[in-house]
């Protein structure tokens, strides 16, 4: 235990939104990994975890206790916990870990829902806060502290070209990029323009599990994604289709009606026609809400 070690929680530094990707000599660019923001505190004896909303998450991610073996000195590191599904980070998948209350369940999910901790900053090292050091200094320390590869810990990569990285992130359907001023300090709790996020509008293939109607025609779709064998409700999408598309979709979906909701967590709402989740739709959205629903989804295509 180190005297003067800051105790959690510390509100993390957050980026401001930026509409367009850019190039800049003063910035470095990182992938914005889509998961749960977590600060890890190692005081020399124990590892505690804390999320963006300052809640304790120590119990949920027991594998990050291995930080104790990785570093010799007290540290506070900042990063994003992600879980992959079909090779890409999936927010609903990591949420299966994040909501767990019991230590037993958390321990069993370590194996079935593996996570990675994408570390991008360091706030404390040995006996000192590093928050007033410029970003590039902090990153040097971070690379020293987590020098070799130790899954689930991964130090994120830094790129010079924002436009180039954003294009690649779009191709790979990742969440977006973050631009950071090279000599900026870490401002806890600050939404600072020293960090800028540029978000991709990701496309997600969802299963259709129900619809609502206006008159006789469907006017919104209830979307779900499969997490293992369970269909998870992730929200309702009502824009993106033309009237004649809704009409033909209504006919198609009426053929697969079912009496009970196909979702594990069906919305508490009346007037829904449930369907077997055999049809899929590609849906564009801005981000995930806290409840693991899609924010402003737009239907791009019925598959």
């Amino acid at each position: 235990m180190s005297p003067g070690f800051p105790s959690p929680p510390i509100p993390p530094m957050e980026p401001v939104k930026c509409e367009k990707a850019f190039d800049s000599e003063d910035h470095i660019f990182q992938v914005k990994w889509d998961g749960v923001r977590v600060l890890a505190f190692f005081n020399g004896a124990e590892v505690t975890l804390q999320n963006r909303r300052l809640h304790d998450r120590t119990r949920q991610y027991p594998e990050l206790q291995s930080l104790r073996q990785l570093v010799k000195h007290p540290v506070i590191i900042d990063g994003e916990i992600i879980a992959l599904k079909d090779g890409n980070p999936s927010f609903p998948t990591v949420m299966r870990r994040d909501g767990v209350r019991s230590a037993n369940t958390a321990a069993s999910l370590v194996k079935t829902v593996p996570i990675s901790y994408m570390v991008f900053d360091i706030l404390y090292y040995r006996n000192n806060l590093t928050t007033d050091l410029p970003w590039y200094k902090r990153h040097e320390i971070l690379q020293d502290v987590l020098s070799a590869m130790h899954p689930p810990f991964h130090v994120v990569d830094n790129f010079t070209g924002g436009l180039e990285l954003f294009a690649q992130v779009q191709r790979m359907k990742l969440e977006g990029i973050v631009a950071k001023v090279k000599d900026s300090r870490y401002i806890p709790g600050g939404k600072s323009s020293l960090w800028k996020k540029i978000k991709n509008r990701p496309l997600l293939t969802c299963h259709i599990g129900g619809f609502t109607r206006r008159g006789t025609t469907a006017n919104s779709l209830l979307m779900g994604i499969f997490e293992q064998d369970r269909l998870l409700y992730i929200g309702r999408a009502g824009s993106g289709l033309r009237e004649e598309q809704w009409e033909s979709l209504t006919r198609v979906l009426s053929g697969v009606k079912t009496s009970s909701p196909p979702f594990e967590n069906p919305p508490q709402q009346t007037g829904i026609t449930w369907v077997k989740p055999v049809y899929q739709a590609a849906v564009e959205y801005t981000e995930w809400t806290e409840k693991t629903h899609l924010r402003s989804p737009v239907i791009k295509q019925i598959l």
Partner: protein
Amino acid sequence: MRSLWKGFLGFGLVSIPVKLYVATEKKDVKFRYLHQACMTPVQYQKRCPTCNKELDNSEIVYGYEYQKGRFVVLSEEDFARIPLPSTRSVEILNFVDLNQVDPLYFDKSYYLEPGDGGSKPYLLLLQAMEATGKIAIARVVIRTKESLAAVRVKDRVLVMETMFFPDEVRSYAGLELPGDNIQIHENESKMAISLIENLTTDFDPDQYQNRYRQALREMIEAKIAGQEVEVSPEAPAANVVDLMEALKQSVKMTEKPRKRKRTAKTGVGT
């Protein structure tokens, strides 16, 4: 804490509304039986070996075995017909001195809380019992069973101990106990008494812990922790690396990945 039932504490002509709470709880570590091969919790079925079928609860009745293999059947109505003077009450019969009641008789402990309008008579009884130093012997019905009980004052609450009836307490007549033929020297006796005096303290329940349960819990925690350590599945970890590699291949990095100077030595950062 949820009350077990609401009823009345009868004391002469007074009837005090009370709520009954269980005062103690077992904290044993619970285990489930698993099928070793697939780790599925084992299910229990009620089966009839004669008809060779699984039974529904509605097909099951109570039987009293009065002779080996011979039963009389009791139905719900039969049970309902048994005359019980008090279905939800604690009827005080007498008051006695606590030290006259052997702890052997005590079974389970309950707290009594005054119900609506019961506060004053409750306090009156409590204070009167405190002043006289007596405890009450009562007849109580909990669920469908009648038992004997002792009601006593503990701090500011009335505590009820259900008691075994005398015919439920076994006799020690069959045990081989030391008789009068054994001689004990005065010095031996003095030694034993002084040992007792040396070990005498005030009773402080907090100083006693269940060491077995503690050790068991520690072992379970260690096993859970052990599962964490053996984990770090190769494939998914590699996937993140793949993803990071794919990005690196197509986009320029700020610098060449740093030489991993310390990995050769320990593989651990400083």
